[in-house]
């Protein structure tokens, strides 16, 4: 539990277990993340990074324990409340998960349409954001025609169009060269500086040693939080 003097955690895991079909991948996870923090989730391939992440972005439910996001107990939240919480969350998937037969514009507009924002406002926001990810020339291109790097930028744009309170990214540097990886990281740092809580799952050791942030290390079926600077 967090102490009364500390800031309330934006994500709070209390004795949490999570897994598939009754078999837990992670057990006894006891971690609190502060609002505005920058966190890596590290661990070998198959350690459960994607699994933990999908629980945190509210697609999987914990099998044991209490998960609180934005101070709300996920187990006691109804479907509409969970949807509202997801609207405050942005996710960049490893495989992007774009709607391939739709345009760049429509993909990025999706989180805003879901909230019922007027189309005029959506257009203004999407165009502005496309300039930031340097895709304004491809606005009406169908996503299936884009390169991997372009798709990733569309995925990032879709994740941040809502100005989310928490941004998740699963192996964002996995399929790009180190130059683009650095560019991406600077983008995430930039977002973190304006207050977004950033959580990145990666098995890229170089990344975690270059950028000195706290990290959750997954090992032997449990998770441990290591603060920045203090290295194992």
């Amino acid at each position, binding site marked *: 539990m967090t102490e009364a003097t500390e800031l309330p955690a934006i994500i709070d895991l209390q004795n949490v277990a999570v897994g598939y079909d009754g078999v837990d991948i992670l057990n006894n996870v006891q971690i609190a993340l502060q609002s505005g923090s920058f966190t890596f989730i590290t661990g070998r391939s198959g350690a459960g990074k994607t699994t933990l992440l999908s629980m945190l972005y509210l697609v999987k439910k914990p099998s044991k324990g209490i998960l609180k996001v934005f101070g709300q107990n996920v187990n006691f939240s109804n479907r509409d409340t969970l949807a509202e919480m997801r609207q405050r969350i942005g996710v960049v998937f490893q495989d992007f998960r774009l709607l391939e037969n739709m345009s760049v514009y429509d993909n990025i507009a999706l989180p805003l349409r*879901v909230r019922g924002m007027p189309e005029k406002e959506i257009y203004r926001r999407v165009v502005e954001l496309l300039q930031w990810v340097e895709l304004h020339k491809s606005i009406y291109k169908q996503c299936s025609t884009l390169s991997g790097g372009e798709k990733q930028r569309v995925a990032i744009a879709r994740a941040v169009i*809502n100005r989310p309170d928490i941004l998740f990214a699963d192996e964002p540097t996995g399929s790009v060269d180190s130059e683009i990886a650095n560019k991406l990281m600077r983008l995430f740092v930039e977002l973190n500086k304006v207050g977004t809580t950033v959580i990145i799952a990666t098995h890229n050791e170089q990344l975690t040693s270059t950028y000195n942030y706290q990290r959750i290390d997954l090992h032997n079926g449990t998770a441990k939080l290591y603060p920045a600077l203090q290295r194992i």
Partner: protein
Amino acid sequence: MRRDLLIGQKHEVPAEDNDTSIFMYVLTSIYMYLFVVVLAIFMAINSMAGNWEKDITGSITVQVSPIEDANKHIDVAKTKEQLNKVEQFMEQISGVEEVQVLDDAAIQKLMSPWIGSKVDMSTLPIPQLLDVRLKPDAELNYDEITRGMKQLTPNASIDNHRLWLNRLIKFATSLKTIALAILLMVVAICAFSIYYSARTSLNINIETIKILHIVGAKDKFVAKLYAKNYAKIGLFSGIIGLLAAVPCIMLVGKYGISTGSGLLSGASLSSAAWSVIMLTPLFSLCYAMFTSYWTVRKSLEKMV
């Protein structure tokens, strides 16, 4: 033109089930045609039976034929006795308000066009009549009454026309029940079709649904997308079904009336009935909309 089950406005959300969608348009159009035709039949039978009903409510007439003695003369006393028995019998039936024996003067008045007014009625073999006034909405079991009366005297009877109409009304009622059952069946099959096609579409589009879910779409957002499209399907099929059904109804109506039968002419559709028929596309719009909305809401709870 794209007619996807999931797609709202142009490319709001994509869907990959064009074929299912076209199939649904065809299927529901056929259902709606059936629905409108059977509905028209139902209402026609209803109005016909209603007309018959009017004929047999209010009052009935019971006649008691005069009883003759061995010399073929009318036994006035015995006839009177039988008449009183029948009167008492009718009075104790629930649903009967009042029984009145038409006296000779009244009968004479009825008969005067044929026999003049200077004849001694009691000597003529004219049946004695009982005017039986019924309570409003009384439903009499005519078969049972006839049986009871025959036990008293073989000379008493309810007028034929009435008995016959009563049987026809019973027949019409069973026809109405069948028509109603068909209507309900069509409505139920329609619901099942919408349910399964919406479920199928959700399954085909599961990846899209999952992405919508992750970006924070509430169930009602997805359900509304579907409802909008099924509303279109409902309206379109309702109109097609109606357009196909109306000529059939008119044809049957014309044929029925041209048989010249006074009974069948009561089968025409009132303007109120026509309004109901004209409103069926609206009904199918709402029905398809609500059924799909409900299906999607229920399915999503299990899917994502």
